[in-house]
């Protein structure tokens, strides 16, 4: 099981913030069955200080994840929640935004650059938007979601991989956090997009008119 690429970027950014002394501690969190511990070990091997595993066999929807993270944030009181902008399995792009909403924290999504001002307790985040780049300033604590160009994640080096085995992974359940993670969405239907049909070369205007009338039914 490998870490979601956008989450890798989030871990890397957190580590860089700690290295520049903007933050003191990096805590990696993952939610799900036993296998997620592998991902947490990777985060620890990259350099995270400790990890929390919210253990559940339940399939988790973005809102459930956001609620669990919100409950954790109220316990841990972090300065910053760094998330990948989306997971490459669901591609939902919702969790970070909903987390900010639940906590009533400011959010800066699709970050391509993050600058923390510890003294002023604020962050300046450059985000990638359709029109180009947008720079926001927000008070901390805040939620930031990462985009591809924010950084290039480091490789976990062997000495750190060995050290990571001794770092603690705390285990919690949704019940302990007081969150109901029952699924609220039901998948009704999944279908492939219609196959793209090849174009047809027509012989004359008359043929075109006939096709537009009889087949496409637009005239």
């Amino acid at each position: 099981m490998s870490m979601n690429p956008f989450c890798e970027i989030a871990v890397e950014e957190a580590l860089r913030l700690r290295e520049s002394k903007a933050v003191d501690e990096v805590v990696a969190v993952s939610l799900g069955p036993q296998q997620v511990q592998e991902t947490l070990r990777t985060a620890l091997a990259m350099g995270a200080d400790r990890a929390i595993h919210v253990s559940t066999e339940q399939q988790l929807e973005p809102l459930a994840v956001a609620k669990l993270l919100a409950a954790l944030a109220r316990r841990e009181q972090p300065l910053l929640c760094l998330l990948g902008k989306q997971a490459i399995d669901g591609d939902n792009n919702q969790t970070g935004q909903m987390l900010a909403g639940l906590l009533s924290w400011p959010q800066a999504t699709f970050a391509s650059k993050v600058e923390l001002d510890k003294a002023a307790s604020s962050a300046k985040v450059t985000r990638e938007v359709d029109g180009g780049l947008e720079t926001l300033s927000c008070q901390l604590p805040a939620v930031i979601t990462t985009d591809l160009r924010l950084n290039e994640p480091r490789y976990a080096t062997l000495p750190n991989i060995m050290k990571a085995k001794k770092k603690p992974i705390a285990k919690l359940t949704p019940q302990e956090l007081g969150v109901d993670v029952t699924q609220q969405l039901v998948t009704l239907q999944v279908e492939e997009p219609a196959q793209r049909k090849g174009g047809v070369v027509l012989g004359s205007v008359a043929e075109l008119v006939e096709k537009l009338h009889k087949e496409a039914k637009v005239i």
Partner: protein
Amino acid sequence: MNKDWMGKYSGSSSLGLRPSSTEQVSQILAYCSLRRLALVPQGGNTGLVGGSVPVFDEVVLNMSAMNKILSFDEVSGVLVCQAGCILQTLEEHVSQRGYIMPLDLGAKGSCHIGGNLSTNAGGLRLLRYGSLHGSVLGVEAVLPDGTVLDLLRQLRKDNTGYDLKQLFIGSEGTLGVITAVAIQCAPKPASVQLAFLSCPSFAAVQQVLRHAKQSLGEILSAVEFLDQESMAMATQYLPGVSNPLAQAGPDAAQQQQQGGGGEQGGPFYMVVETQGSHAGHDKEKLEGFLEAVMADGSVADGTLAESQAQAAAIWRVREGITESLVRRGAVYKYDLSMPTHKMYELVQLVRQQVAHLPGVKAVGYGHVGDGNLHLNVSSPSGYSDELEQLLEPFVYEWTAQQSGSISAEHGIGLMKAPVLGYSKSSEAVNLMQRLKVLMDPHQILNPYKVLPGVEHMGRVEMYDDR
């Protein structure tokens, strides 16, 4: 078609042919035999010894139109295909069916399986899957007189007379033109692990190799090494390639200072890959191996690929060295086999020899698991007689003194025909020449390649005929 991949060898042919069937190849060779027209069989043209391009005006027989996959047996894993199939295409095809090709090399995106066979290509997986002499089950080839030799069986065991297909594997298109291949593929491993390690010295590299063979033996699939100079080339000349062990931050300055080309040439980097059927077992074995090599100091630092993307990036560093050198300028390539403990000594000697030439750099890398060194001398200002004389025959003589091979896997081609004697006795070369004249009496296939001075023998035969 007239120029080789490195830009070092160039012919002046005015005719290229692209047959699409064995029958066409047969007709072409029969005609050329009759008319005494010389031919160069050409695959992906990625050869590194000038064997795939004309020397003068030989007709280029390009096999790229013979690119059909004929069959694949999902139970036995035997692939049958035409000689002009690109290796990467074959890899993708069998991969979808749960198998992998028994060979892998940096040129996979362009090289043909026919060319791989003709050169007995080695590559990154030889350590695990052996040489093509073992994994090729059958061959269809056309003899210089146009005769089609159908040896295309899919049998693992077939001891019926002389194993003629072996004649075409490694003879570099001088005895016949391979038109189809039956090859044994291996099951796709469920678990592939990749470690990238940094070692303080070449002695440490050998220690790691020993540990790897002992603790990872049955799952070990590749052991490669590269020196600091090779790493510098790859990171400087390949866009988007960086050293996986170079960390951003306060350590970076210290790392840059640890320059290469020093007496030891270090730090040295190694790629260790395992392929197995069970991820849990393999990871456990790998952890044991890593703990051992870190404990005895033979590994200073390292990383384990955590995703396919990281694994690909690590392989890109090793596989891209050749390309980076070509981007830098002219390259003198030496592909040598010798006792492992001697390998880096040669690199250091050559480095000293060329130290006074501005911009010229010697790099060492290769299949340390197979005792195969790739010694390259990069000259951004171009090929020069002065540099060539400094290197040859010194490199060949030194290798011969270690009872090594002057061409581990690249073959002889045009480049090494004159120096074949450094690795084969005159009796052996003589028998090769007699076989050549027997099979190709009119000397039409790939003349001037592989064997020294055969054309003289050929002419003698012809005079006798008259």
